[in-house]
Structures are given as C-alpha cells and as structure tokens.
C-alpha cells in the first residue's frame, strides 16, 4: 500500500524494473510482459500482483462487448500509475540499460 513514507526512488529489483519497463513500453498484459522480458510466468504474474498491491500499476478487464466483437476472451490489462512511473524513472537511473533492453518506441501506446 502506498503511503507517505514510500519514496518514488524505492529500490526495485532488476526483474521488477524490467516488468515495469515492459508495461511502460506498451506490453500491457501478462503474456505480453512475459514475451517482452523473457521471464517465466511464475515470476511475471506474482510480480504484477505485488506491484498492483503497492499501487505502482492498476489493472482492469476489457469490456465483454469489445472482446465478443473480436471473437476472443476479454483480457486483463495493466497500466502504470503516477507512482509507478516515478518509480520506473528512478529505476531507469539505477539500471541505465533498462531502456535499451525494452525500448518503448517498438510498441504502439494503447
């Protein structure tokens, strides 16, 4: 839970920073993050939940009507919060290669 004492510069692990960077780059669902980072499902999904708990990201389900139109099941999408963005910026300073690993230009923003 985000509180006054949590500074945006709080130190994230390299894995968590990669996941945040992948979300920022436009991979906005779990499997997409897995593909972008190369991390296994057992790492990505619990990390997403932890970040959601810490209010770095927010999740929402796609509307059923939109999914029905495309004849596919609705997906759960993740989005960075302002606190998540600030944390990512701090992590990018800490891990300068992060942006090069998952550049945000490759994927169109949702």
């Amino acid at each position, binding site marked *: 839970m985000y509180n006054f004492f949590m500074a945006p510069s709080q130190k994230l692990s390299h894995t968590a920073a990669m996941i945040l960077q992948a979300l920022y780059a436009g991979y906005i669902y779990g*499997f997409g993050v897995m*593909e972008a980072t190369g991390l*296994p*499902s*057992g790492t990505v*999904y*619990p990390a997403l*939940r932890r970040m959601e708990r810490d209010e770095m990201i927010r999740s929402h389900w796609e509307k059923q009507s939109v999914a029905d139109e495309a004849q596919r*099941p609705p997906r759960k999408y993740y989005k960075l919060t302002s606190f998540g963005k600030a944390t990512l910026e701090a992590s990018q300073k800490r891990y300068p290669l992060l942006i090069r690993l998952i550049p945000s230009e490759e994927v169109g923003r949702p």
Partner: protein
Amino acid sequence: MRISGLIHSALVQRTILRTAALLVPARLREEWLSEWRTELWYAWRSEREHWPRGKEMTAFCLGAFRDAVWLRRNAPLPRAYGSLLIDTRQQFPDPPSAEEGRLLESPARCLVFLALVASANLAIASLLPTAHNVIVPPLHPDARTLAMLAPYGGNHAQRDLLLNLLTLFGVAWLIVPATTSLSLGDYPRNPYWFRRWAFFAAKIALLLPITTLGALNLASIGSSISPLGMQAGLWIGVMTLRWALLDQRCRCPVCLRTLASPVQIGQSSRIFLEWNGTELLCLRGHGLLHVPGTPAIWFSQQRWLYFGPSWSGLFPHRRL
C-alpha cells in the same frame, strides 16, 4: 512420444490450472482462474515462431502454482482491518470466516487436519505389507511355545525398528534448533496459558505418528525396509517440528487462531533508536504480537500485548 503428447495436452494444462486454483482464496478463485485461462488461450494463439507449443505451454501453466501461492499468502483480507484503528467511531466488522482465511486458521481445524494425515498414514501403512508387519507383527503358529523357549526373542526386529523411528523423532528435536529458535516468545501470564500449551502438546502428539508412520511408509515401499526411507523420516521429523514451532508462534494465545494483518514497523537502520519488525493482530481483538526484525538484547524474541477491556468498542465480536 504418446505419453509426452498426453502430458502436454490442453486437457492436462487446464487440469494444472484448476489444481493451482485450489490454492487461491475462494473469493478470488473465479477471477484468478478466468485470467489464467484467458492468458493460456492467447498463449496458444501466440504468433511467435520460437514459442513452441505443448511443453512450454505446460511450463507456462505450472507458473500458475507460484502465482496462486503468492496470492494465498498475500491476498488482502476481505475487509480492511487495521485502517479502522484510526477512526475510533468505526468498529471492526465480523472477523472473516475460516473459509475466507487459511485452512488451518482455527485450532480445531488444525488438529482435525493433523489427525486426518495421521489416519491416512496409518491406512497406507496397513496396506503396505512390510509396514503392516512392523505395526502388527505376524503371530507365529507356535508363538506361545516360542515365548516359553525364548521369552526375549519374539519380534525383536520389528520392535527395534519402531524404537529407531521414535529415536529419529527425538534426534529431529536436536536438529530443529539449527533451523529455527525453540523459544515460543515472551507472553505475559494469563488465565489461558494452559490452553496454549495443551494445543502445542496435542500438535506434537499428532506429529509423532505422522512422522514415524510416514517414515515407515517411505521405507517400506520396496519389498524390504529401505535405509533411505529411514533417513527421509529424520528430515520429515525436522520439518514437521519446525512447522509446529512456527505455527505456534503465529497464533493468538487466547483463541489460538492464526494472527493476521501483518504490518512492517520501523527501519532496521534505526535499530538503536526504535524497534523494528512486524506487528500482527488477532482479528478477535485479544491482542497484538510484536516480532522483532533484528533481535536485540532488549528485544530478542517476540512479545505479546494483551488488549484490555477498553478495546472492546473496536471488537464487538470479541469472544474466545
């Protein structure tokens, strides 16, 4: 090839997800399962060329277990306890039921579960011929005559084996301090102290048959008693005793239910200024447990703080 195809089939993958879903708290299970099913659907239709089907898909589904375990340990409580402490006008609602919490949350459920495991071990032992012979030594047709001829002969081998298993349980007590502290914490004396120790003794009493019969079953899988199974028995003993101690430490000394709402307090870098560690709450309003993050001379082990009657306003459902 066929077996491999079966293992990595969509049916097995769906079964893996369903099994993992059992670990997720019931109120979150449906959404969790639909998220994983959806992700699996998309994974199967992924256009990535180097994402082979089958084996990788099974590995993808196995990751669901880690996710489910994380959710089980960290899922927020149904209602926001703790935050209500700020506003004294509000009261704590009903404590969550056992179904919403952990399986072994209630002391009765914990003991029933251990009794069931012990019974299952006994049932398995009675099915394995080698183990069955140890528990119920076969009666020799001339047992009475043999007893007269060699009163101390009899079934020495079986008796020795059972003694060895019991000794292993004793040896496990010597190893456990290397993995966790034997101390159960600093609890001010109260009228319910006996209940806490009786529960601990009941757990140990049930762990004894679980460990000895479990080891015996492992050792008796083949046609003869395997020493490897006996060694495994020692480690089963260590693990079960360690669990008994850890479980006992995170229970309320009054109602014996597991504590909830862990909150991290302080910073370890300020150890000389203030205490740091975790604070846990009894949802029935019996008290708070302070577990030091870094044991110091003045705060070496966990301490319990009983709530007085003044707290009853916040816990209207306070009961034993």
